[in-house]
């Protein structure tokens, strides 16, 4: 199972998911109304590297992170 982390103000417990690509994750989240407004502004990292394609393959034990807009300092 891959793990999905919701970082910073997303403030949700991590979940385990059985998916083959980020496309599957997008489908899985499609019904989550509360999450939708966050997904518009969240970046996605796989194993701590930001990714830009929904075709990104996901393996078991991969870590997927959702990163809302940042403001350090």
């Amino acid at each position, binding site marked *: 199972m891959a793990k999905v982390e919701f970082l910073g103000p997303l403030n949700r417990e991590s979940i385990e998911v059985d998916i083959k690509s980020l496309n599957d994750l997008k489908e899985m989240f499609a019904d989550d109304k509360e999450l939708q407004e966050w997904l518009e502004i969240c970046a996605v990292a796989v194993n701590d590297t930001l990714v830009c394609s*929904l075709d990104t393959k996901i393996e078991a034990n991969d870590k997927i992170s959702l990163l809302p807009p940042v403001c350090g300092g």
Partner: protein
Amino acid sequence: MALELHDGSLHVEDITNRWFNEIKDKNYGAYIPFIGIVRDEKGISGLSFDIYDPILNKWFSAWQEKAKKEGAYLFMAHSRGDVPNHTSSYIAAVVSPQRKVALKLINDFVEDFKASAPIWKYDLIDGKRVYAKQRSTALKGAGLLK
């Protein structure tokens, strides 16, 4: 370690003096710390921060490599959790043999930090954390799962 994360406010004098003492005999010509101080504005009592270390470490290492190619070296300290008004949450510093390299690097490093470092800021209002959404910047690739 050139990147340090602290719980609560940063001890500005301790940190900037310690970095200075690390580098003063190493023949750098310029040392420029940037010290960020929490401003009392909009009725906040302070700020609060969440940090995602793994991506912050990668981001910082990439900048350290970039600095190294110019003969320069970077330091950074940031707070986690609550930081009251008029105390410091962020210090960045560059050392370089050359003045111009140092001045450009501190500018570019601090600006990219603001845009890219995986840190989330909250206003502290009536003891509650309120995500500073308006002042935040979406990261590269944002909206992928929408």
